[in-house]
């Protein structure tokens, strides 16, 4: 009888050890892996694609031909792809400086662009371009100039060529800023060196970047064109990058960016999620990402065409995007104990 309290104490202790998973996941290593193996390469690729696009556009403007236009268009696709894969990593200083708007804002404001080109009283120079809204100088604006019907009339008028050259020049500089901020201005180091109270905030920053992108993909990039907000009536005009017919190309890059954020690095996000969770959601999430990427590949690059010819598969892609968003914003956020912050997307 005298031994009963010690016996109870020992049993309780053993029970504790048996029922609690060990919580020794190295979050600092996770942040460091994200910094160097995941996020830095993504911004390096964006930074490389900006000048590449500018070079190809300048070549086209110097020697206008359908071949050089095709090259410039391909360079634009590569730039858009690089941007799409880096979109989950827009947070912190990148977001404070609105780089996601200056690079990726869509749709293009074609009337503003055409007004600038046709109004010869305006001097087209780098200052003028800087003063334009991001809708008139982002990737979408370059897309409009390179892919819309007006691009078929070669060579471009002098003012159209000037506008395109200046806009691409501006965009190339903007596309180098994330890498500069991340690698040279110490944002990446700050992220990876976070400790104490800041460590959770760093994880929360990236998680929210992923969640906001997943929400935008599901709701705006797929759901809206699919008529989810409009009685099922398709709105093909609301797809992203309609002139380049590259909506699914960008979606695929977005899914790949999410997959990189999840799988790349050692340790990776999947390992962290699994260490905090005892269910199948992380594995299902990875499978859904892979399925979405495969589906994008089978649908081709153009969402407008897919809506017309493969509506069922687009619906399937929408369901997958919903499941991906739900897993991130509910299941992952819940086990990480992070607060999901609403996106600053303008909701258009």
């Amino acid at each position, binding site marked *: 009888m005298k031994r009963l309290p010690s016996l109870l104490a020992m049993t309780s*202790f053993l029970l*504790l*050890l048996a*029922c*609690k*998973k*060990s*919580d*020794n996941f190295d*979050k*600092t290593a996770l942040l460091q892996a994200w910094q160097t193996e995941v996020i830095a390469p993504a911004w390096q690729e964006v930074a490389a694609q900006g000048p590449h696009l500018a070079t190809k556009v300048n070549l086209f403007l110097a020697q206008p031909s359908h071949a050089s236009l095709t090259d410039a268009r391909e360079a634009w696709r590569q730039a858009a792809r690089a941007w799409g894969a880096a979109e989950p990593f827009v947070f912190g200083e990148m977001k404070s400086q609105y780089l996601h708007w200056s690079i990726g804002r869509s749709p293009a404001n074609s009337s503003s662009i055409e007004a600038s080109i046709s109004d010869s009283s305006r001097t087209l120079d780098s200052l003028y371009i800087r003063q334009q809204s991001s809708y008139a100088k982002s990737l979408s604006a370059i897309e409009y100039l390179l892919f819309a019907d007006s691009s078929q009339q070669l060579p471009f008028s002098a003012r159209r060529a000037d506008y395109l050259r200046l806009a691409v020049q501006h965009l190339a500089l903007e596309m180098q800023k994330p890498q500069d901020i991340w690698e040279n201005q110490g944002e990446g180091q700050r992220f990876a060196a976070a*400790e*104490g*109270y800041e*460590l*959770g905030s760093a994880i929360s920053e990236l998680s929210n970047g992923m969640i906001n992108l997943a929400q935008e993909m599901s*709701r705006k990039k797929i*759901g809206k064109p699919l008529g*989810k*907000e*409009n*009685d*099922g009536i398709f709105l093909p005009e609301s797809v992203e990058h309609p002139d380049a017919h590259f909506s699914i190309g960008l979606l695929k890059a977005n899914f790949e960016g999410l997959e990189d954020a999840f799988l790349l690095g050692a340790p990776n996000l999947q390992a962290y999620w699994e260490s*905090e*969770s*005892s*269910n*199948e*959601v992380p594995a299902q999430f990875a499978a859904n990402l892979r399925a979405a990427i495969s589906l994008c590949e089978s649908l081709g690059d153009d969402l407008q065409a897919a809506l017309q010819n493969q509506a069922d598969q687009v619906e399937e892609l929408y369901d997958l995007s919903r499941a991906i*968003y*739900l*897993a991130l*914003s*509910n*299941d992952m*956020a*819940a*086990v*990480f*104990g*992070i*607060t*999901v*912050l*609403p996106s600053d997307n303008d*909701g258009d």
Partner: protein
Amino acid sequence: MTAIKAYLRQEREVLPLLLFRIVLGVLFLWSGIRFWAKGWIEDFYLSPDYHFRFWGWDWLPLASPQLCYFLYSLMLLAALGVLLGAFYRWSMALYFLLFTYFELWEKCLYLNHYYFVSLLAFLLCFVPLHCNTSVDAFFRPSLRRRHLPNYYFLLPKFLIAILYIYAALAKLEPDWWFRAQPLSIWLSARSSYPILGPILAWGPTDFLMSWAGFFYDLLVPFGLSFRKSRPWAYLFVILFHAMTAMLFSIGLFPYVMMGVALVFFSAEELGRFRFIYLPQDHLERPYRLYWPKLQLAIWVVFFSWQLLFPWRFLLYEGPVCWQEQGFRFSWRVMLVEKVGQLHYRLIDQNGRQKLLYPEDDLAAWQLQQMRFQPDMILAYAKDLGRRYGARAIYAESWVSWNGRSSARLIDPNYNLLEAENGWKNWDWVLPAPD
């Protein structure tokens, strides 16, 4: 019965109650100024286009911006009145009414400790805490007393004991005992904190803290009630609430609980504070309670309500932490970690379907709360239905509860325009996931 009456009427030195009033006054004033200084009057009361109202309180008008600031200023003035003991009963009554009015403004802001402050302020309207060390007693020496009947001491103690014991009983949940949830999630997210981090990361900490939290809530009112255990119990109060203040963003709650526990001490134990008494040159007569039957009736009804109301969850199907019917006003403190996603499917009068997202209209802090609380999901559905003249509206609602995989919270085939909030079982809420 005679012994009980004698015990209740026995007069005790009033020092702990005076200190209690001063601490409360400081907390009332501090929390009010903090709220204003952070811009929360604008953010929480005035900016939102839509407010979630408490069921049955929709009729309560919301003040215009100018009136809102005027009322808030009046509430701060009342808090100052409580602190200084100036026009004490009016100040406390006014504070109770205005504080409660602001709490009823927006359901998303509900916190257990705000509810506790409302109840305490109501109760203290009846207790003559201005009988010494107060502006009232300074100008009216006849008010001055150094002793009050025991029942005045017991009123706040009983309320505090109910809070703690019911908070312990609410922890008799499988999640709390066998999964250490939601502490496991919260502590894991804080395992990088300085000093405490390694302890929080240690495997059994979640369970130890969960179980210790239960025993703390259950035993602390008893520990504070007995002289021998009181210093230790108060030390636990300080340590426990200091830790919760460090680990969780729960505003002034830890300080409120540290402050109000002082009421358990005796005048002998707090003797060094006797310098706060005003000089008194008359002999005290036994305290005379005005309208004793009316006051007794009010206290009986008040405490009966406090004892019974938290049990209403037993009338409803499913775990209260999931369906939340009977969750509020029941001292269910820190029991759930929920994250939700929600949008609505609206069918208009022509049968056309449209998806609506609450994030398009609601403030971020409202969105965060409403996405997993069924009555708010319903209230907003009805508002959307009214605004869009809908024929039907359905909720696509997914909630992750205490680390479980997301599950549907609301029946997606239930037209929420036909669903009812109220005392009846919410048949439009789906059963909890396993």
